[in-house]
């Protein structure tokens, strides 16, 4: 044995296959798009239109005081929708706080998905039943969860992949790094999708990273990195599906960067004019995910009135239902505050519970 045989001398992976093509991958409008299944394109279209409408409706609900806050994903619907549709039923989605659309595209009841942002509770759905983790507000903290879950599933011999979403800003957190490293070392069946929308609230990309692309981070963990046009829903769907399949096949994690843009302000409470120019927004409106797909559908003669109408109708139905249901006050029981802190409340919690109960009773009597 010489040092050249010891693991520290030269790690074994070959770097080249892990490096991304620095040109974002596109499908729509390219000759390759011809092979795309019309049924898939129609499904994606319906979801995009519904998603756009949902963002508008939710933003409107903030103005009416029906949502505490809403971080719109307008402009990023392709990523949201493709993320949800690249998964099998048994797989898990790990959304960040901006990913309500992905959550509902996966099938979670919209009102349940909005519970956090409405403010009646922190999570409105059963993550195990939906195989969707709670929307994560502390940035990047959901990434190690996804790794751990995927690892546990693999240890259990189950066919489960986890897909975790994070923003460009979130990549700067230590948890991003630790999660990717654990995933690669454990070859966990997990896919990371960075939605690079150019901003972390007001902070532009150049102040967030000096990397050629986020996809170039992958090689540093020993996993492949892919770069994709995040507004090309077919491309994102294909890249994610490939990565999910790879994970499912036991080949380990993938890091995908989708280049996209946040058309709206950070949330309804944000004033984007303080930090970005309208001309940039206008440029991105020209590269709208719905328009890109409509062009493709039109070119292939798939965008008939029926499709347009059914998409619009479904979007309106969703919006109307949302409006109606969100306009009702949720049924809330303050005593629930003590119900889920532990399996059994401590003696101190029981005392505090009694105190609140007494207060509420006194309130009712007065």
């Amino acid at each position, binding site marked *: 044995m010489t040092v050249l045989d010891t693991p520290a001398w030269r790690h074994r992976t070959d770097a080249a296959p892990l490096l991304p093509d620095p040109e974002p991958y596109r499908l729509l409008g390219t000759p390759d798009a011809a092979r795309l299944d019309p049924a898939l394109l129609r499904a994606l279209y319906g979801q995009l239109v519904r998603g756009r409408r949902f963002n508008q409706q939710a933003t409107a609900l903030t103005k009416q005081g029906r949502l505490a806050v809403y971080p719109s994903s307008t402009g990023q619907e392709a990523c949201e929708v493709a993320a949800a549709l690249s998964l099998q039923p048994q797989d898990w989605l790990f959304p960040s706080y901006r990913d309500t659309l992905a959550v509902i595209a996966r099938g979670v009841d919209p009102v349940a998905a909005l519970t956090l942002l409405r*403010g009646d509770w*922190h999570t409105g759905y059963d993550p195990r039943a939906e195989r969707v983790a709670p929307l994560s507000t502390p940035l990047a903290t959901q990434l190690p969860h996804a790794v751990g879950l995927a690892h546990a599933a693999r240890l259990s011999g189950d066919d489960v992949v986890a897909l975790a979403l994070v923003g460009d800003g979130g990549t700067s*957190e230590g948890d991003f790094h630790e999660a990717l490293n654990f995933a690669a070392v454990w070859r966990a069946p997990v896919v990371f999708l960075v939605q690079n929308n150019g901003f972390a*609230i*007001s*902070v532009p990309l150049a102040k967030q990273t000096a990397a050629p692309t986020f996809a170039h981070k992958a090689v540093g963990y020993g996993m492949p990195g892919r770069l994709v046009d995040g507004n090309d829903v077919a491309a994102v769907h294909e890249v994610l599906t490939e990565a999910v399949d790879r994970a499912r096949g036991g080949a380990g994690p993938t890091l995908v960067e989708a280049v996209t843009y946040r058309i709206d302000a950070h949330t309804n409470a944000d004033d984007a004019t303080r*930090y970005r120019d309208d001309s940039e927004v206008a440029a991105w409106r020209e590269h709208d995910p719905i328009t890109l797909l409509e062009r493709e559908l039109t070119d292939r003669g798939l965008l008939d009135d029926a499709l347009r109408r059914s998409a619009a109708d479904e979007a309106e139905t969703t919006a109307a239902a949302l409006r109606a249901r969100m306009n009702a006050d949720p049924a*809330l029981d303050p005593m629930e505050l*003590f119900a889920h802190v532990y399996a059994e409340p401590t003696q101190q919690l029981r005392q505090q519970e009694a105190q609140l109960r007494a207060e509420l009773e006194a309130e009712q009597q007065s």
Partner: protein
Amino acid sequence: MTTATRAADRTQAPARKPATMAQALNQALRDSLSADPAVHVLGEDVGALGGVFRITDGLAREFGEERCTDTPLAEAGILGTAVGMAMYGLRPVVEMQFDAFAYPSFEQLVSHVARMRNRTRGALPLPITIRIPYGGGIGGVEHHSDSSEAYYAHTPGLHVVTPATVADAYGLLRAAIASNDPVVFLEPKRLYWSKADWSPQAPSEVEPIGRAVIRRAGRTATLVTYGPSLPVCLEAAEAAKEEGWDLGVVDLRSLVPFDEETVAAAVRGTGRAVVVHESAGFGGAGAEIAARITERCFHYLEAPVLRVAGFDIPYPPPMLERHHLPGVDRILDAVGRLQWEEG
């Protein structure tokens, strides 16, 4: 400086105008940046945006991006680089965007910021101010309303300061930035928009960190509080008049150093005390305050020191937070339990 001389100084001060706590904090940063080229502000969105609460509004424009810097989104990195900047002689003022988003920097805070002076036998003091908007009552979703003061107050080597008035917001922040020790500066979010007639104190008027203040003298019982709970306590004291109670209110302003003398003197005067804060009660700052009052005032006490605090639960969702936060009724209820009939 005594209260009397301060009042005197103020007569010479420029005319006061209505100002919010947010404005006073902004002015304190501006004046600190002007006064000392070593002062640097850094954090997430502190530049063009002026911070999500606009506390750094205009500073990047006025002092340049190198004095007021948008950092990458990584709190340990922010505090860790601030340590390095302070090692080189700068005075970093760090903004954490919300209470719960300071937790990623906990190791840097506890293992380095709090200990560097001690570790190096005084050779390497770290004059870092860590501004953290904290507490609830603003309808924030989870992780946006934590009260984390007990973690910091238990960590030797840190000063822990929290203003409750517009004037203190300015004065304490200037004092924090001028301090040669690290200061965790906790800004009560829900008081950002509270208003008072105010003009920036002259440097000579700025009080050092570590003095509690009697906000209201009282004879029947003493409320001891700080930060976001001060207005609630003052309101409770007002309401208590109806019950015939004359409640005193002490505003600690700084948890570390802790002004035992002022608190003990006030409580000895009444023989009864209630400590009020909104963080979880168990192991909260109120435990230390109550234990210490008891140690110092045992033979003056007519009743045990009681605590009114947040419940021992994760901070509630917006629609339920009013049930969690100590309010006037809960405070008066505690005062009523101070064994007035002799126990």
